[in-house]
């Protein structure tokens, strides 16, 4: 009888068994990942939560102040407007991304000329760094030298440049447009992959039964993509609501506070004012919302795994 792994290598006292060596190696391999999660995510998060209950200012020792910071932040000028902005921008951007992404997937699923090239090109916005995307679009929207105003003026469609980023409504719309431009490929590629998994026989059978395009879309495509839609919408909601770079570059929260979102407020308090304690309270106030989304998403994904 050959030695089992549990007993192989067992010799004098203190020597590790093969299984123990296997375990050690396994732990050693996951240590970098654990260090990353702990060092870059867990540790700063715990400190952030702690700071929210202190009067921490950069370069000075902190003192515990309980809930004082939370009450102070709630009285921030236009705090309510900031929440509304965050919610509306998120809902609009995610909704439009889903629709545009779905259209992209349906189009790229058809047999069009240069389909492979089109698929690759349509994915490009997703690969552009957010900061770069923000700068390009800020340029395009610029009221003095922007491409949009130049084009519209030369076409005679407008008499004077439009201050896209200088008016509340257009500034708001500009942020949503850029969020959609940057994010729709994620939806598109996910839905395209999902579409490949739907059997063409279903469509053929439906066609034979006399179903039109809209009916096939409603009763075959949507149910077939249900899980992909849910996951992409939930993930994108979390990402979009947490967006900082695009609103920061495009409008900085302006004009006035018309496009202020909670990430910008965190930046203003923590980085511009150095008030780390106050800044930390803002994301903590948003935590229950994101926590709920993550719980829903995780439960859904786990239930699908079990199924």
């Amino acid at each position, binding site marked *: 009888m050959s030695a089992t792994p549990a007993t192989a290598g067992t010799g004098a006292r203190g020597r590790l068994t093969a299984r123990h060596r296997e375990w050690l190696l396994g732990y050693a391999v996951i240590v970098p990942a654990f260090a990353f999660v702990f060092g870059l995510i867990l540790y700063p998060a715990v400190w952030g939560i702690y700071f929210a209950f202190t009067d921490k200012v950069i370069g000075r020792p902190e003192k515990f102040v309980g809930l004082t910071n939370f009450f102070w932040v709630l009285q921030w000028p236009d705090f309510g407007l900031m929440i509304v902005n965050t919610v509306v921008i998120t809902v609009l951007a995610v909704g439009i991304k889903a629709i545009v992404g779905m259209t992209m997937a349906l189009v790229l699923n058809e047999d069009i000329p240069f389909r492979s090239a*089109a698929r690759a090109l349509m994915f490009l*916005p997703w690969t552009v760094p957010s900061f770069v995307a923000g700068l390009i679009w800020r340029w395009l929207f610029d009221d003095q030298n922007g*491409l949009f105003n130049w084009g519209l003026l030369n076409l005679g469609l407008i008499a004077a440049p439009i201050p896209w980023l200088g008016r509340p409504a257009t500034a708001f719309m500009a942020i949503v447009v850029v969020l959609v431009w940057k994010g729709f490929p994620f939806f598109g590629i996910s839905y395209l992959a999902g579409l490949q998994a739907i059997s063409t026989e279903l469509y053929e059978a439906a066609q034979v039964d006399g179903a039109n395009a809209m009916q096939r879309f409603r009763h075959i495509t949507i149910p077939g993509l249900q899980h992909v839609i849910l996951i992409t919408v939930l993930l994108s909601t979390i990402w979009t609501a947490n967006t900082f770079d695009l609103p920061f570059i495009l409008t900085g929260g302006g004009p006035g506070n018309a496009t202020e979102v909670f990430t910008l407020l965190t930046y203003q308090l923590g980085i511009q004012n150095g008030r780390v304690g106050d800044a930390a309270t803002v994301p903590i106030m948003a935590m229950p919302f994101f926590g709920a989304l993550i719980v829903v998403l995780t439960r859904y994904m786990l239930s699908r795994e079990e199924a």
Partner: protein
Amino acid sequence: MATRVATTTLHSQSLVRRKQLKKLLVSGVALVYLFVVLLPLYWMLRSSISEN
């Protein structure tokens, strides 16, 4: 019999026309998408290689 053949022919013609229209619409949408996607990227490239 002749009517049935005529109807079938008409039906096939309209099917072909619908397919062509669909292809045109789909290609048109794809082109619009590509334009919207590529214009800012073209602008970015242009700016990165110009002196000013």
